[in-house]
């Protein structure tokens, strides 16, 4: 489809406008996180040398600089500490309500995530939410000879526990 006013974009994949991470192994060193996510596992890396378990996952331990890390599972349920329901002015590519929450996973770990499959007015602070994995548009990788390959992708959010 021609792009109005931008003829050079026709048929091209504007990679820097893609909001989802480049998950394929060609582009990062934590692609295992996404492989695990596909299996509905929420994981991070643990340092085998000093025992440090940072999140997000790393390739070098930020505490002792060891590269000897292993993948470990994090809880897939947590409690909503704070949240906000964005009903107007949501970014292009998203629909309202867009619900964001600060979630306590226990084990001394908090994270920010979207809460999906949840109606406006339904969520309360203290509610339990669980990991939800969903497909996002594939990433297009340009191979030699201009061949375009599609790399499938998943991303995560949390959803209310019924």
């Amino acid at each position, binding site marked *: 489809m021609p792009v109005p006013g931008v003829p050079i974009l026709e048929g091209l994949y504007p990679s820097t406008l893609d*909001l989802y991470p480049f998950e394929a192994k060609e582009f990062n060193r934590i692609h295992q996180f996404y492989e695990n996510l596909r299996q509905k596992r929420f994981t991070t890396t643990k340092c085998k040398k000093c025992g440090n378990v940072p999140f997000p996952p790393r390739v070098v331990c930020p505490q002792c600089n060891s590269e000897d890390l292993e993948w470990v599972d994090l809880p897939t349920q947590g409690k909503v500490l704070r949240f906000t329901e*964005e009903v*107007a*002015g949501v970014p292009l*590519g998203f629909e309202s309500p867009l619900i*964001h929450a*600060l979630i306590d996973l226990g084990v001394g770990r908090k994270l*920010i995530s979207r809460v999906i499959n949840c109606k406006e007015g339904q969520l309360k602070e203290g509610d339990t939410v669980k990991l939800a994995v969903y497909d996002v548009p594939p990433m297009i990788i340009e191979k030699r000879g201009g061949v375009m390959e599609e790399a499938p992708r998943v991303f995560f959010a949390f959803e209310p526990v019924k």
Partner: protein
Amino acid sequence: MEDVAIVGAGQSVFARSCGESIRELCFEAYKEALEGLDITGNDIDASVVCSAPEYDKQRSPSGLISEYLELTPKPTFYVETVCSSSSTGLRVAWSLIKAGLHKTVAVIGFQKMSELSSRDAAERMGRGGDIIWESPFGITMPAGYAMYARAHMARYGTTEEHLAKVRVKNSHYGVANPKANYRKELSLEDILNSEMITSPLKKFDCCANADGSSCIILAGGDVAKSITKKPIWVVGLGAATDTMSMAGRKSLTGLQCAQEAAKQAYEMAGVKPQDIDVAEVHDCFTVSELLAYEDLGFAKPGEGAGLLEDKETYVEGKIPVNVDGGLLSKGHPIGATGGSQIRTIVRQLRGEATEAQVKDAEIGLVHNIGGVGQYGNVTILRR
């Protein structure tokens, strides 16, 4: 080492849509900053250009702006810390002068946001978060600050009415500011009844995107005294960061980057919060101004709303804040905002803030925050 002073300060009118290109926009602020000075562009040794690049077609704007202001072949540098870019620019300019590299430096901040819809701008702003771990959720600046608001409400009993009172004050002063976009007095009801954006923040709790530019000219002490009768001295500089990811924050009831930057600035200036006569704080949202009262030590944690209830942050109060209408009235052209706040304090300390002059203001403070509490700059000025 020589002291550093602000000799000139200017800004364009902040408007939803300026109808000109970024170079033309920048020239307006530059022209106002030079007014009344015994120098011309030839006397400016270097420029620091500040904006957030995601709203523009132009890349590397510093070279372009420097050419249009006819500052070539003087060096120019591009500085970015999103919404606090131009106060970071001031810090860089100060160091350049202190180091003896340059005598007179112009800090030019700008942003033209009208080429994008609010939702497109929100998408690009969201990329100023952690692009792998948080931006893909579609989190925006209003949503981030909304979570701070909820945390403050839960911990201290702050109410939506308290938040609205920030806009009541700022809209009151916005009326008198010819550079502001919104110049209408708003009542508590107007604000509480405005449409919900992201709970608990309503439309009038938010600043609006805008086009605008600012320009601050700094010079070393001797030069400063020779080109203006009213140099305003930069006596305190504080700068700090917090985690890019919201999940990494220690608490959501205050901005740690602002607390840290304030501590540094007070220490360097040798003053205390109660010594400040007038302040400009980063009220991108109503809650942000309340957080600023506490982070800057104008009120104890949790007691910011009380300061407002007692009207202590009005012109006649103990510590007048944002008496130019703030970002909430002026609009928030990202890279231009810090320079506009500095300009307001400069005018206050020179006794030239005719619209809302704080009597005998001698020491002023500027609090400028980048992102949802990622970058914090606190600057203390003295006449």
